[in-house]
């Protein structure tokens, strides 16, 4: 066995961004959402990811803006910490250690210095019980603080974040759990509980799903499992409370939210329609239909200008209050199952697999971003539980990336099977796939496997069906048809002793086709459709088939259901070797001879990488993940990884990705590769934002010498001098295209001025004139930032200082600081008495 210390299994992107409700910042410029154990900061207008706040070691479960400083955000996680971040710069400010799993986090404007979190109840033996507690955040300095000041507010609450809401002015908190709504009044310190019956005569299901409180009215809206929305009023009495009911949703209300002014109530559910109820206007409502997938959470920006819905298909939609979509942030769509194989698009190197229902998604693994969705089914999706939907079950892309074949299937009952085989041609001008041919009922039964031949001239598609046939499809021209181009038609129908074909595979050059019929492998010549040879290794049906590549192309590999991995030599037509491994997945690397085999062993999955010609595996790792591996694929690297030793050689040109049982996308990464990434990320920090223009190159030389002289100067002067490239005049000069710049004589003056090293006092005057416009905003922001800092009483030392590197604050040497502190401590009371007298 080869040592595997160098290679480790790593999670690679595609985590859920719809786990908790996203939040929008006060200025509506950024959207924050939790993604796995990180917090992502997106721009609401460009959909671009601005920052990734990394620090938690477990799933992030809560995210709230700091009510006293809107540039900071609290996050909580299952790792038992609450962290305070500066999201504009992506800096961790503070960590509060709670020590219990935290399931949700709330912040109220009227309870300063306190956050509310939901913890499991430790006292009771019942682990399913949760309580809402107020956590007083200690105002001590230091990046890590133990926070133990916990005050229980409500017991027996639901751990789901949207089942709890803070009411008008922070006076009360409402929380629903099961069939009970609890309201706690902070002033009276009293809890009222209201219960509903589980069912009434009409068959209503009254379980609460979510709660929202009106921002400036005594009203609580609750959503129910049967799609009803109840508006509760007068709940400060036990007896005389009232509620009104609205009903539009046909299944459970997933999310409720009031707009900040309280004029509208937003609700959403599985129908994927955002319903806007006008508050106080009865059942008047507006709709935003066809949002694509079931709504999970709704949030509204603090100024009410943006609505934001997160959806079941790992998507966040940001829309303006005028109902126009402004941004769609889409992660890797992961359903409960994946029916298609993982594929790699040869053009974009994107991962292709099932996305939204009836779609194929093209997901860029490198940028962790969805490139686009291809609508395969082209039908209106009906959001209704229990409906038999059309599903994309198979997909294949040819070696050049110019043809895509898809199979969609809809089966209502065993007799009624609807299968459509579609072939899509890549269109260079629009850079996407277009439907070329659609063949309904290509096979009488389900299509079990599909593959393209590797031949570049005549692309051929082979499908195997449960009806006992395999069919070859060829692109054929029909010159007499009016204006129609080439389309695909069936070329050959083959069968073997009425057995059911399960797998098919083309050799790398497309000269041989192997089709597995039950326990027999048949090898055909696609040019003449002659049956060349058959192999069989009973007992056990063929599970996977693949030809060797490059130097191993004389081998055909097959795995059987009876724990056998066989390698046949095609030249001698005999079994070369076989081994008893329960291989569940066999995946060839398209760029080398290597094969990856995943085998099942007692609850976990092992990986072997081997060459068909060599008896020893190149690499093996036990227990790459728990449970089985669903799909795997080799993706080619952008550039060949260098500096690989023997054990990591197989990872040099391509990467192996696989999907685990829990639909997590994993990959293998080597140590050297990780080192490279770390090195490159460091470089990025140093990199300046100035564009490379002739001016920049000219200035670059000048600046180097400048900096040296400056350094010597700055050591003398107390105040650090603003570097010339930081001046907005220079920046403007460098970034503006030459043809729109003012005359050179005018510029020269400015340029020279900014380069001059002057005394600080004089310089201030000069600068003020130059950068009036530019610096105003910056300074404002800085002021706000420092103000916020004061209010939160977080010490300016430690990590926070990093954020203000550009700020020209006076830097004191340690000796001077000590001197000042001493002076501060010294008693000057004698001076006052002297002055009085």
């Amino acid at each position, binding site marked *: 066995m080869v040592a595997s210390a160098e290679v480790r299994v790593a999670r690679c992107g595609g985590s859920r961004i719809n786990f908790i409700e996203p939040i929008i910042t006060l200025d509506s410029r950024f959207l924050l959402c939790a993604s796995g154990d990180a917090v992502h900061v997106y721009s609401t207008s460009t959909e671009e990811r601005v920052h990734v706040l990394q620090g938690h070691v477990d799933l992030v479960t809560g995210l709230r803006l700091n009510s006293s400083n809107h540039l900071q955000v609290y996050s909580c996680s299952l790792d038992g910490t609450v962290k305070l971040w500066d999201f504009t710069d992506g800096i961790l400010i503070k960590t509060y250690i709670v020590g219990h799993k935290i399931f949700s986090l709330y912040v109220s404007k009227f309870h300063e210095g306190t956050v509310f979190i939901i913890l499991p109840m430790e006292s009771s033996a019942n682990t399913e019980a949760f309580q809402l507690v107020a956590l007083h955040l200690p105002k001590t300095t230091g990046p890590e603080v133990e926070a133990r000041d916990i005050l229980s507010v409500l017991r027996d609450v639901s751990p789901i974040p949207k089942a709890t809401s803070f009411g008008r002015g922070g006076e009360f908190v409402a929380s629903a759990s099961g069939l009970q709504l609890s309201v706690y009044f902070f002033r009276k310190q009293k809890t009222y509980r209201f219960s509903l019956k589980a069912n009434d005569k009409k068959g209503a299901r009254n379980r609460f799903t979510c709660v929202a409180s009106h921002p400036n009215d005594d009203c609580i809206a609750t959503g129910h499992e049967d799609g009803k929305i109840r508006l509760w009023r007068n709940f400060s009495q036990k007896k005389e409370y009232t509620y009104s009911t609205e009903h539009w949703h046909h299944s459970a209300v997933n999310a409720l939210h009031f707009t900040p002014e309280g004029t509208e109530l937003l609700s959403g559910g599985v129908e994927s329609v955002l319903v806007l109820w006008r508050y106080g206007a009865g059942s008047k409502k507006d709709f*935003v*239909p*066809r*949002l*694509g997938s079931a709504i999970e959470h709704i949030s509204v920006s603090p100024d009410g200008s943006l609505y934001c819905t997160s959806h079941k298909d790992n998507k966040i939609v940001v*829309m303006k209050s005028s*109902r126009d*979509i402004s941004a769609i942030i889409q992660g890797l769509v992961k359903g409960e199952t994946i029916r298609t194989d993982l594929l790699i698009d040869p053009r974009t190197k994107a991962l292709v697999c099932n996305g939204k229902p009836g779609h194929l998604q093209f997901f860029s693994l490198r940028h962790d971003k969805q490139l686009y969705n291809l*609508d395969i089914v*082209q*039908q*209106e999706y*009906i959001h*209704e539980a229990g*409906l*038999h939907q*059309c599903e994309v079950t198979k997909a294949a892309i040819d070696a050049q990336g110019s043809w895509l074949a898809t199979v969609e299937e*809809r089966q209502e009952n065993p007799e*009624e099977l609807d299968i459509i085989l579609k072939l899509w041609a890549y269109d260079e001008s629009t850079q996407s796939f277009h439907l070329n041919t*659609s063949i*309904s009922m290509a096979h009488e039964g389900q299509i079990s496997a599909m593959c393209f031949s590797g031949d570049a001239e005549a692309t051929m598609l082979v499908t195997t069906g449960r009806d006992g046939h395999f069919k070859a499809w060829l692109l054929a021209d029909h010159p*007499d*048809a*009016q204006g129609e181009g080439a389309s695909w038609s069936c070329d050959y129908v083959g069968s073997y002793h009425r057995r059911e074909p399960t797998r098919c595979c083309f050799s790398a050059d497309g000269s041989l086709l192997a089709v597995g019929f039950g326990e027999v492998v048949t090898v055909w010549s696609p040019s003449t459709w002659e049956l060349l040879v058959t192999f069989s290794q009973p007992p056990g049906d063929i599970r996977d088939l693949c030809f060797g590549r490059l130097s191993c192309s004389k081998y055909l590999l097959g795995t059987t259901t009876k724990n056998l991995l066989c390698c046949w030599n095609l030249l001698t037509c005999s079994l070369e070797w076989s081994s008893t491994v329960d291989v569940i997945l066999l995946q060839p690397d398209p760029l080398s001879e290597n094969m990856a085999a995943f085998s099942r062993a007692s609850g976990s999955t092992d990986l072997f990488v081997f060459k068909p010609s060599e008896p020893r595996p190149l690499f093996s790792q036990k227990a790459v993940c728990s449970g089985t591996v669903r799909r795997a694929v080799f993706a080619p690297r952008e550039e060949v990884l260098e500096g690989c030793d023997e054990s990591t050689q197989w990872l040099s040109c391509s990467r192996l990705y696989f999907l685990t049982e829990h639909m997590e996308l994993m990959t293998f990464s080597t140590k050297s590769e990780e080192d490279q990434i770390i090195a490159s990320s460091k470089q990025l920090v140093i990199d300046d934002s100035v564009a490379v223009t002739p001016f920049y190159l000219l200035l670059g030389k000048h600046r180097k010498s400048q900096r040296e002289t400056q350094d010597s100067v700055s050591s003398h002067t107390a105040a650090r001098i603003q570097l010339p490239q930081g001046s907005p005049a220079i920046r403007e000069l460098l970034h503006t295209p030459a043809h729109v710049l003012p005359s050179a004589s005018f510029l020269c003056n400015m340029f020279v001025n900014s380069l001059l090293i002057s005394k600080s006092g004089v310089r201030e005057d000069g600068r003020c004139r130059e950068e009036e416009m530019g610096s105003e905003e910056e300074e404002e922001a800085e002021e706000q930032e420092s103000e916020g800092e004061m209010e939160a009483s977080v010490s300016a030392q430690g990590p926070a200082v990093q954020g203000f590197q550009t700020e020209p604050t006076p830097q004191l040497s340690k000796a001077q600081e000590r001197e000042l502190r001493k002076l501060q401590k010294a008693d000057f009371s004698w001076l006052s008495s002297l002055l009085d007298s």
Partner: protein
Amino acid sequence: MASYKATRIPSFPRLGEKVTQDTLYWRNYKTPVQIKEFGAVTKIDFSPLSPHNYAVTASTRIHIYGPYSQEPVKSFTRFKDTAYSGTFRSDGQLLVAGSEEALIRLFDVSGRVALREYTGHSKAVHFTDFSADRFHILSGSDDYTCRLWDIPSSAEVSRYSEHTDYVRCGTPSRLNPDVFITGSYDHTVKVFDSRKERSVMTMDHGQPVESVLLFPSEGLLVSAGGRYVKVWDMLKGGQVLVSLKNHHKTVTCLCMSSTGQRLLSGSLDRHVKVYSTTTYKVVHNFDYAASILSIALAPNDDSIIAGMTNGVLSVKHKKHPEDRKMVGGTSRHRPAYRVFVKGKNYMPKQDDFLVRKREKAHLKQYDKELKRFQVSKALDSVLKPHVRLKTPEVTVAVIQELNRRGTLKNALAGRDEKGLSILLSFLIRNVVDSRFAPILLTVAEMVLDIYMKVVGQSAVVDKQILKLQELVEKEIDYQQELMEVLGMMDTLFATMTAKKEP
């Protein structure tokens, strides 16, 4: 927010013949006018002069018809026996005809009595024509000879007796006054030059030649005889270029379209085939009621005239766009052009702020209903007569969509007698169509389930249900028979492959 996706109407492979440019061109004729002649129409010839009257030779008469007249404008009746081959001279003034009495007669088109009579042939003269110089007459006769006559002097200029059987057809060269071609029942086509004593070229057709035709360029010659139409390359010394066998009875006549792009052949099998002269493929086909003996195309292809053995002359005139306008009568007043361009031709200035109206996707009526989840209304809108009769695939696609949504039963239920009878008549019409059968059988089952209780209340519906049952039973029998045939064929194929292997 994605827009609503319209229901996809699957396109089925078009059955039957493909619609090509040629089909459209040759279909663009009105329904034929039938004129009854006294006997089989053996020859039709158009006058080269406008208004392009045509001479029809049938029995003992030659009638001259105007382009749009159904009555002859003139007739020559002084034949004692059957007349043949009434042909105009290239100036349209004179007409020549042979006859069973072995005479050749020359008529003035405006006169009544024959100007000249040429005697010399000993048997019936089936072929007469003028030479290109307009001063001579060619003739071919059943006495195996063909002769050249001088028109003014009625004298025989030359005689060729090379053929060994009846000479029944021929054509003069339009470019060379001395050259003419004859076809005979001795299976040969011969080219004669009046300056020479003997034929200059002989081609063997292989069948008795019924008709010969020269291309406008005169480089190619077409001959028809037996079931074959053969094209000869004259410039290569009479090599056969292509041999066409598209008729299943003797080809009797040939004709060229005015542009020379299409060749028409009429046959005793009652078909006229149109060939492309570039590919020599059949591009169109006309059917007639009786065996065709003669065919002619008016200059500019304005009309197709075919003469048949039963004496019927079929005249088809081309449709003209002006005609349709006349038929339509009062044309509807349409909005002026400027209504459509109003406000659309405004060019925005540089500083203008552009506000775009959102493009509204146009949805069909059934899609609008489906979008609003009004399933019954959607089904109603595709069961309207013009949809269900003209485009049943749309109706079926909507039914399929309803089935996918799981609301087909709701849409089918709650119909009154009229609605149900429309639905049943649609089923009766389409349930056995293999394209629609899978889904329509489901519909039929559902309809019977839903309306089981009301059977017996309406005579119309009961009758339709019985008809549907009968239809389905018949179809099942039919399919069973087909399966039997398939099984028989399978055994045949199996024995074939077994023989091949050893």
